[in-house]
C-alpha cells in the first residue's frame, strides 16, 4: 500500500491583494458585489481571484459579500419593521443603533428581496406587504397632513359635524380617528380637510373608478361650491342597501329653483347592476334632508399608501405573542363566540331549502349503558308542520320519532350497529318527492373493521375518519365480534349485542405495550398528543343548550371557575396560551411549563364568554370552551302541579286531594273535544289509579324534561275502565305534592244501549241460541256483556248452600255500583236466573224455588233469561210479566225503553 504525503489544508488563507478591498468594506454600510469589486482590481488583469479564497469575507444569503466579522443586519431590520409601527428605517441611523447593541460593524445587504433601499431608507418590498394600510398611532406634528392623513371609518366620517373654523387639528378633535396613514400622491398637496377611509360596498365599482369594496380612498371634508357629478360621501334620510343612512355616491342634482334650492337629487351608483345597487332618488324638501359630508379626492391603490407588513411566518408555529397576532386571535374568537351563541334565524326569513341545509344526522357512540351506537339528529328547524312522524328505516330495522320532538331539539336514537344504512322518511309522505329526506341518510358500518369515536367534552363519541388516535384523548372503539375474537390479548369491552362490542379507551401519554399491540392488531396508529380543556373543582350552576344543540356551562358572577389543561406537557414557559373573550374585554394568559396547568377565571362580569387554548405548534389543534356568566341564581323546579281537563283547571295544594266535577271520562278519547294536560316538576313520579271499590294502579309514569306528563299514556291505560265502567275515580297521585281526582260517571242513553245490543246480537246471537242452557260458556261471552250494558256486574251465588233447583238453572247476583256521598259502593240489587227456555213459561214449583232463593239473598227483584229472551219477576208475585226478545224489542224504541225500565240500572 502506498502512502501519500499530503500537505495539511490551510483553512485560514488570506490573500494579501484583497487588503484594500477589506479596508473599503470596513467603511461601507452595505454588502458588495463580488464582480464589481474584483473586476477593476483583479479580473481586469487576468487574475482568477475569488473572495471565497480569503477568510476575511463571507457571502450573504443573497449572493453578495460582507466582511466575515461584520454583523449582517437584514434579519434584525426585518423583525424591527414587522414589529414597529413605521413603514421605513433610516439605514445609517438604524445601523449605528444596532452597532451599539451588537458591538460589531453592522452591514445591510441590499440584495435581500424582502427590502427596498431608497434615499437612505429601507422599507419592505411589495412581497412582504399586505394590501392593508399601515396605521400609525403616533406621528410627528410635521408629518400630519404633509405626508400622513388620518384614517376614519366611513360611518364615523359620515356622522361627523362640520367644524366651524377649519384648524389644522380640527379633524382630530371632531372624529375618533383610527390612526394615521402615510400616503403618496405625486402632484397633489395634502390639506387638513383630507382623510382616508375604506370603501364599503360595491355600488361605486364600475371597473374604472377604483372605488371597490374594501379599497381605500382619500376624501375631503365639506367641499365648497357645486358638488354636481362629484363622487361624494353623503348622509341623509335614505336607506342604502349596503350601508344604510350614508353612502358614497355620485351626486347629481336638478336645476336650482328661484330660491336657489334643488328639488330633486339623485345619488347615482356607478355599478351598472342597478338591480342590486340602485340609484337613490331624493325629493329634497329642506337642506337638512341630505348632507354632503365629503368628496372623493382620489381612490387609492396599494402603492399609494404605506402598507402593513405581512405577519412573520414560522412554519408549523403560531404567533401567540405579537400584538397583531393576539388581535387576530381575539377577532377569530369573537366570531366563534358569536356563531356559537347565535339564535336561529326567524322562520319567515328563510325558505325550507335553506333550513334543510342545516339539518343533519350522524352516527355517535355513547356508553354501552346509554345504548351504544346512536343516530344524532336535529333540531330540524322548519320541518314541515304537516309531517307528524318521521321514520328511520334500514333493511331489517325501523323506528319512529315524533316530528314535534325533532323539530325543537336534538335527539339521539339507539340503532343496531349491523342494520345500516339508515334512511329517513316522513310517515305518510313516503312517495311525495317534495318531502325528500335522502340527505339525512347515514351510511352502514363495515362489519369487518373497527370504528373509532373520539369523546367530546360531553362524553359523546364522535366518529373519527382516519385510523390515527391522539395521545391524551379518550375514545370509544366499536369492535365487531369477528375482530374481537381474533385478538390474542382481549381488551375489556362491553357487548352491545348484534355482534358488536364497545372498548372505552383513554390514551395517556405513556401507553402500555399490550394496548399498543391491540391497537396495532386492529389497524390503529397512535399519533401526536392532543390536549383537553376541562372544567374542574367549581361546579357550573347550569348547563344550557344553544339553538344548534351544543351545551355550555353557566356560572354565577361570584364564582371563580377553574380550567384544567390535560393530556399535554408544556415544556417551555409561553409555549401555550389561554385567551378569554368576554362581553366587554379580552384577556390572555401565557402558560408556564408543567404537566397540568390549572387556571382560575376571576372577576367575571355577566355575559357570554369563550375561552381558547392555543399551543404555538400548529399541529396541536386549538381548543375552545364557551360559557356564560349569570347574575340570577336559577331556582330548582317548583313544587307544584297543574291539571287541565278541557276548561277545568286544578292547581296543586301540597298534600291535598283535589277533585274535578263529575264527568263522563270517555270524552278523553276525543282529543279534539277535550284537551288534557298535566304539568309537574321534571321527572316527577306520577301514579295513576282507578278507584271503584278498591284502588287499582293502572300505571306509574313520570313527567318529561319539559315538565309535562304524556297524557296519552293515561288515556290509553284508563281507556278500558273509562269506557266500560259507569262509575269510578281516575286518581292522579303526585306523592307529597298531592293528588287529583277526576270523578267519572256515565249514564248511558237508550240509543247507546240499543247500538251495544245490536253489536252483541250481530256478533254472538247465533252462538247464544246454539249454547242454550250452557250457562258457564254463555256467562262470559253473553250474559256478562249484556248485564254490563244494563248497568250490572255479575257475581256467582254459591250453589252449595242452595236448595236443589227443580230445573237446570243458574243463579247470579247482579251488583250495581253507585256513589253514596263521597264513597263508591257496589251493592247487589237483583238476582239473575238463567233458565233453558223462557218461552214455555215458569212453573209454580220454579217460582216458589226462585222466591225462596231471593228471600235468602234478601232481594226482591229478579231477572230471568234464557239468552235472547228476558223477563222479570218480583218475589212473591204471580202476575205474569211480559217476555222481551231483545233481538226484536230493539226495533221498537218505545218497547225497548219499557224493557230498560224493568231490566236496567242507572240508565
Amino acid at each position: 500500500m502506498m502512502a501519500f504525503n499530503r500537505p495539511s489544508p490551510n483553512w485560514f488563507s488570506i490573500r494579501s491583494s484583497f487588503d484594500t478591498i477589506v479596508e473599503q468594506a470596513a467603511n461601507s454600510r452595505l454588502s458588495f458585489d463580488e464582480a464589481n469589486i474584483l473586476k477593476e482590481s483583479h479580473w481586469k488583469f487576468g487574475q482568477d481571484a475569488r473572495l471565497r479564497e480569503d477568510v476575511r469575507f463571507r457571502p450573504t444569503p443573497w449572493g453578495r459579500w460582507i466582511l466575515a466579522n461584520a454583523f449582517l443586519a437584514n434579519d434584525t431590520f426585518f423583525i424591527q419593521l414587522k414589529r414597529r409601527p413605521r413603514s421605513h428605517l433610516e439605514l445609517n441611523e438604524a445601523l449605528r443603533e444596532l452597532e451599539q447593541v451588537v458591538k460589531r460593524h453592522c452591514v445591510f445587504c441590499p440584495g435581500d428581496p424582502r427590502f427596498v433601499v431608497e434615499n437612505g431608507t429601507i422599507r419592505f418590498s411589495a412581497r412582504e406587504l399586505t394590501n392593508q394600510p399601515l396605521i400609525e398611532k403616533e406621528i410627528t406634528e410635521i408629518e400630519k397632513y404633509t405626508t400622513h392623513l388620518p384614517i376614519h371609518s366611513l360611518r364615523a366620517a359620515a356622522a361627523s359635524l362640520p367644524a366651524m373654523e377649519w384648524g389644522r387639528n380640527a379633524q382630530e378633535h371632531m372624529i375618533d380617528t383610527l390612526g394615521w396613514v402615510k400616503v403618496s400622491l405625486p402632484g397633489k398637496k395634502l390639506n387638513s380637510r383630507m382623510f382616508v377611509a375604506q370603501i364599503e360596498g360595491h355600488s361605486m365599482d364600475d371597473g374604472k373608478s377604483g372605488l371597490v369594496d374594501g379599497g381605500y380612498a382619500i376624501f375631503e371634508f365639506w367641499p365648497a361650491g357645486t358638488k354636481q357629478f362629484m363622487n361624494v360621501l353623503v348622509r341623509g334620510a335614505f336607506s342604502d342597501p349596503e350601508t344604510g343612512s350614508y353612502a358614497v355616491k355620485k351626486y347629481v342634482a336638478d336645476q336650482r329653483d328661484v330660491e336657489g334650492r334643488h328639488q330633486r337629487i339623485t345619488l347615482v351608483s356607478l355599478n351598472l347592476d342597478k338591480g342590486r345597487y340602485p340609484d337613490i332618488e331624493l325629493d329634497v324638501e329642506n337642506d337638512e334632508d341630505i348632507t354632503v359630508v365629503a368628496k372623493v379626492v382620489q381612490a387609492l391603490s396599494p402603492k399609494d399608501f404605506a402598507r402593513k407588513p405581512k405577519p412573520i411566518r414560522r412554519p408549523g408555529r403560531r404567533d401567540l405573542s405579537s400584538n397583531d397576532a393576539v388581535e387576530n386571535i381575539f377577532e377569530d374568537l369573537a366570531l366563534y363566540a358569536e356563531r356559537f351563541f347565535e339564535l336561529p334565524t326567524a322562520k319567515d326569513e328563510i325558505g325550507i331549502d335553506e333550513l334543510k341545509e342545516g339539518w343533519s344526522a350522524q352516527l355517535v357512540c355513547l356508553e354501552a349503558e346509554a345504548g351504544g351506537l346512536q343516530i344524532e339528529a336535529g333540531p330540524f328547524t322548519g320541518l314541515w308542520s304537516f309531517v307528524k312522524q318521521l321514520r328511520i328505516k334500514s333493511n331489517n330495522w325501523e323506528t319512529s320519532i315524533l316530528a314535534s320532538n325533532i323539530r325543537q331539539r336534538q335527539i339521539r336514537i339507539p340503532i343496531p350497529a349491523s342494520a345500516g344504512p339508515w334512511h329517513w322518511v316522513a310517515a305518510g309522505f313516503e312517495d311525495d318527492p317534495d318531502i325528500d329526506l335522502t340527505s339525512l341518510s347515514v351510511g352502514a358500518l363495515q362489519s369487518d373493521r373497527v370504528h373509532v369515536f373520539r369523546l367530546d367534552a360531553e362524553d359523546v363519541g364522535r366518529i373519527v375518519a382516519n385510523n390515527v388516535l391522539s395521545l391524551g384523548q379518550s375514545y370509544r372503539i366499536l369492535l365487531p365480534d369477528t375482530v374481537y375474537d381474533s385478538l390474542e390479548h382481549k381488551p375489556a369491552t362491553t357487548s352491545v349485542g348484534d355482534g358488536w362490542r364497545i372498548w372505552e379507551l383513554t390514551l395517556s401519554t405513556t401507553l402500555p405495550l399490550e394496548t399498543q399491540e391491540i391497537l396495532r392488531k386492529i389497524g390503529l396508529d397512535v399519533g401526536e398528543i392532543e390536549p383537553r380543556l376541562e372544567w374542574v373543582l367549581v361546579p357550573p350552576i347550569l348547563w344550557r343548550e344553544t339553538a344548534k344543540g351544543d351545551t355550555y356551562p353557566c356560572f354565577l358572577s361570584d364564582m371563580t371557575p377553574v380550567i384544567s389543561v390535560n393530556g399535554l406537557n408544556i415544556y417551555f414557559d409561553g409555549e401555550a396560551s389561554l385567551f378569554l373573550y368576554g362581553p366587554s374585554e379580552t384577556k390572555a394568559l401565557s402558560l408556564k411549563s408543567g404537566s397540568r396547568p390549572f387556571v382560575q377565571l376571576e372577576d367575571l362580569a355577566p355575559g357570554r364568554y369563550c375561552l381558547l387554548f392555543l399551543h404555538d405548534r400548529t399541529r396541536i389543534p386549538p381548543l375552545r370552551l364557551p360559557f356564560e356568566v349569570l347574575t340570577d341564581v336559577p331556582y330548582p323546579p317548583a313544587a307544584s302541579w297543574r291539571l287541565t281537563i278541557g276548561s277545568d283547571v286544578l292547581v296543586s295544594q301540597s298534600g291535598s286531594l283535589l277533585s274535578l266535577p263529575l264527568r263522563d271520562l270517555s270524552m278523553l278519547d276525543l282529543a279534539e273535544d277535550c284537551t288534557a294536560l298535566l304539568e309537574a316538576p321534571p321527572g316527577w313520579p306520577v301514579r295513576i289509579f282507578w278507584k271503584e271499590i278498591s284502588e287499582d294502579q293502572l300505571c306509574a309514569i313520570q313527567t318529561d324534561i319539559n315538565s309535562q306528563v304524556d297524557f296519552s299514556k293515561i288515556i290509553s291505560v284508563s281507556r278500558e275502565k273509562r269506557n266500560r265502567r259507569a262509575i269510578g275515580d281516575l286518581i292522579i297521585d303526585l306523592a307529597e305534592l298531592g293528588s287529583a281526582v277526576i270523578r267519572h260517571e256515565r249514564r248511558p242513553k237508550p240509543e247507546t244501549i240499543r247500538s251495544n245490543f245490536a253489536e252483541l246480537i250481530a256478533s254472538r246471537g247465533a252462538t247464544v241460541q246454539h249454547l242454550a242452557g250452557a250457562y258457564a260458556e254463555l256467562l262470559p261471552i253473553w250474559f256478562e256483556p249484556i248485564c254490563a250494558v244494563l248497568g250490572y256486574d255479575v257475581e256467582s251465588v254459591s250453589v252449595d248452600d242452595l236448595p236443589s233447583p227443580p230445573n237446570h238453572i243458574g243463579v247470579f247476583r247482579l251488583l250495581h255500583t253507585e256513589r253514596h256521598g263521597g264513597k263508591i259502593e257496589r251493592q247487589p240489587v237483583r238476582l239473575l236466573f238463567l233458565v233453558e227456555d223462557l218461552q214455555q213459561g215458569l212453573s209454580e214449583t220454579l217460582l216458589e224455588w226462585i222466591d225462596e232463593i231471593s228471600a235468602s239473598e234478601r232481594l226482591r227483584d229478579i231477572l230471568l233469561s234464557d239468552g235472547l229472551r228476558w223477563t222479570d219477576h218480583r218475589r212473591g208475585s204471580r202476575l205474569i210479566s211480559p217476555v222481551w226478545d231483545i233481538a226484536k224489542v230493539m226495533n221498537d224504541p218505545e218497547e225497548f225503553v219499557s224493557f230498560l225500565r224493568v231490566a236496567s240500572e242507572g240508565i
Partner: protein
Amino acid sequence: MRLTLLDENKVSDILLNSVGINPNDVAGVADLLREEVSARCCCPRYKAIARVSKFIAPIVTINAETISNVCELLERSGDLLLGFGGNLFPTPVRAITLGGGTFRLVSSLSTKRLTALLVGEWEIDGITRTCHLESERKDLFMEEIKAVGGVVLSLSTWAGFDRTPPADSQWLSSLERRLQLEAEPAGSLERDEQLVWNGCVAIDDNIRWKSDDTGKMAQLWHTRNRWGYWLYAWTQGGSPTFSPFITLRPDEGLRSYFAVARSLGVPLEATLEQQAERTIITLDSWLPVAEYRYLSISASLVQSKKKGKQWLIPNDRISRVLDVLQERLGLIIRKEADL
C-alpha cells in the same frame, strides 16, 4: 376579568374555599351530586357519577362505587329523583315540619345554595339538612320557601299517611274485599315460570315465611321471579298456585306482612337503645314506603344491615315516632335493657 395560573398546591383548597365542599366526606360528595344534577336538569345516573369523580380528580380520587352509594342515599331521601331509564332529575324544595321550629329540608339544591337562600340555624349530618328556627323567623322562612317555589309539608303528608292505610285488620279486610271482587285464577302467575311461593305464618311466637306444609294455609304469600323481583299475593288460604288470589304491589305486600303479624298475635319488634340525647331504634324488617319516609325524616340512618336498619332519633321525638310506628304497623317496642 382575570386569568390566574394556580399553584398546584393551592388547587386542593379551591373546592373547600370557593364552593364550600369537602370532597372527603359524604356531605361533600352529596353536594357535588346535587350541583351536577341541578345544573344538568336531567342526566343519566352513571354519567353524573362519572362526572363528579372526574370533577374532583385533581385533588382526590373517589371511586365510582362510593359516589354511587351516596347517590342512592340522595335518591332514597328524596333529594334527587331517579326516573325511568336511569335518569336523575333535580327536585323542588320541600321543608318538612318536625315540630318545635325544626324543619328537615329535602331538595337537590346544594347545601351552600340552600343555606344562602333560607334563614335559620343549619345542622348538616351526612346527606340530611335540618334547619332550626326561632318562632319569630318562621314567617320569613315560609316566605323564602315560597319564593324558591318550595312547599312546607307536614311529616304525615311527606310520608303519605293520608293516602296509605295502616297495617291493621281493616287493611286485611280490604284485601278480602278485593279478593272477592277481583280474584285472579289460581296459577295464573305461573304461565312463564314455576314459582316457589312462601306463606306467611306464625311459628313459635314469630312471623315466618314458609314453603313447606306449615305454611300451606297462609293467606299472604311471596316469591321471587326469575328477574329477582318480589311478587306478593293474597289468597283465601293456600298458595296462589292452587287458590284464586289478588296480586299485591311490593309495598302492599310489606304492609300486609306487618298486618298479618299483628292479626296473628306475633307483631314485629323494634329494639331501642337509649343514649344520652338520642335513641337508636333497630328494625329487622323492611318498612313499607310511607313508614320508611316517615322514619327517614324523623331519624338519621346510622347503619344498614343485610336485613333491617338502625336509626338514630333525638329523644324529644322518640315517643312520637314510636307511637306512629306502633299505631300504623303494630310494632312491639323492646328496650335493649329488657332483652
